[in-house]
């Protein structure tokens, strides 16, 4: 690894990102707009929420300090918590927004100028060096995005553990950003990529991870296996409960890492140079001065 090359790739990637002013403004405006609309439209009543990441038996047995609002539903004797619908909705909409935007930014980083990026690989960059620059760039966006969104959340609903709530948002950005990288590496057409990002994030975080629906949902294994599950749970636990979140956070990190590994394999496969790499050195080329052929340069080879 050559840190200087990596640093230059990162600087160039960030510059391209920062010069897209309209997109940057939208990255701030969109989450706040989503949150504001949710705040105004969500119902003002308390709802029953079953935290998917907490096993039912553990919830029933845990000390009361972990789940201050716990109670047992009389009809099926299941332990659930009761929370304001507005707060619950706001949290899962925020997680969804951060995830969706992170995926979109990552997708754009991969798809935009894909042919020029391939040229850089042909010129000597290793695919993973360019992918690493994209990862760092989208993580910068995720940090800024999560900060803005978490600031709004804290201002409006507070939260039991704000840092954990923020961590959930960061993890949502991480997992969905890596998903965006994978889609961007695999698909060349913008529309197909956009559909993959928007459809999955809408279905997953906007609908299936909605904790108000989860209590009644079927096929829970499917819901738990989707990318938005663990980050949503970290945010919800951070907002309402004092329950441990380490397993969920590590799981989300690993989930994103697996997606990133897949993206790296696909990107390297598509960006490989399709020529015999074992070319022998040129008998004449060895003596060539790199600058000698340009006008004003001195050819040191002699006749």
């Amino acid at each position, binding site marked *: 690894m*050559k840190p*200087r*090359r990596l640093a*230059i*790739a990162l600087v*160039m990637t960030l*510059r*391209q990102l920062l*010069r*897209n002013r309209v997109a940057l403004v939208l990255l701030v405006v969109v989450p706040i707009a989503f949150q504001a609309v949710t705040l105004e439209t969500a119902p003002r009543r308390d709802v029953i929420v079953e935290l998917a990441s907490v096993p039912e038996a553990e919830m029933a047995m845990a000390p009361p300090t972990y789940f201050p609002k716990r109670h047992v539903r009389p009809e099926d004797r299941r332990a659930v918590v009761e929370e304001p619908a507005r707060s619950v909705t706001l949290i899962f909409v925020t997680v969804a927004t951060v995830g969706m935007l992170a995926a979109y930014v990552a997708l754009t980083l991969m798809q935009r*100028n894909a*042919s*020029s990026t*391939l*040229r*850089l690989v*042909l*010129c*000597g*960059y290793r695919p993973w060096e360019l992918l690493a620059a994209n990862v760092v760039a989208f993580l910068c966006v995720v940090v800024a995005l999560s900060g803005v969104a978490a600031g709004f959340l804290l201002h409006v609903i507070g939260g039991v553990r704000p840092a954990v709530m923020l961590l959930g948002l960061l993890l949502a950005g991480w997992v969905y950003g890596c998903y965006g990288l994978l889609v961007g590496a695999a698909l060349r057409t913008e529309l197909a990529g956009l559909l993959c990002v928007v459809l999955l994030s809408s279905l997953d975080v906007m609908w299936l991870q909605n904790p108000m629906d989860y209590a009644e949902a079927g096929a829970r294994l499917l819901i738990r296996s989707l990318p938005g599950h663990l980050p949503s749970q970290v945010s919800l636990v951070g907002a309402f409960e004092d329950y441990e979140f380490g397993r969920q956070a590590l799981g989300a990190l690993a989930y994103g890492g697996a997606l990133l590994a897949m993206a790296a394999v696909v990107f390297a496969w598509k960006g490989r*140079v*399709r*020529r*015999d790499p074992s*070319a*022998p*050195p*040129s*008998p*004449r*080329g060895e003596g*060539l*001065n*790199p*600058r*000698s*052929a*340009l*006008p*004003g*340069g001195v*050819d040191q*080879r002699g006749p």
Partner: protein
Amino acid sequence: MTSVLLEARGLAKHYRRRPVLRGVTLDLHAGTVAGVVGENGSGKTTLVRVLAGILAADAGSVTIAGRLGYCPQDPLVFGDLTVQEHLRYFAAAYGVERWEEPADRLLDVLCFRTHLHDRVDQLSGGTRQKLNLALALLHSPEVLLLDEPYSGFDGRTYSAFWDLVAQLRAAGRALLVVSPLIHDLGRFDVVYEISEGVLR
């Protein structure tokens, strides 16, 4: 006899069922400027892309001795970066530490120094093409594959381009230039015509 810097043997390429290259064999010698001509859609660009390693051939092999410079037909550049940033970025890709000096010369030879700090999405098509060519030459490669490198050039730069080619030839580089212009034929040491996937 000069050494062979690029050797292609039995290259074949199909797009779906349509053969584009059929058993193309080619040697490119040091100090030689070879031209590739042919009708639109005859496979000139496909040949160059296969030689450069961007496209995989269905059959055959390509061996390049030395560094490769590839100038694609359409400028493959980044719209949000400046000319100077491109030179720096590609120098890093090539592993060229001291890139300022060769970059300066290319800016002068190709007459686009005044655009050094301009973003590429604000450049004219001809200036983008100059940058496209400069990026292929930045590391002073032994083998150059240039796919219609002067499209959009003004008369002065077009003339400067051929002067540059002459200097590269004199310095022992091997160049393959795809040209759509019949009046360029006299500038080549060897002319290949590609027709129905066969190089003659």
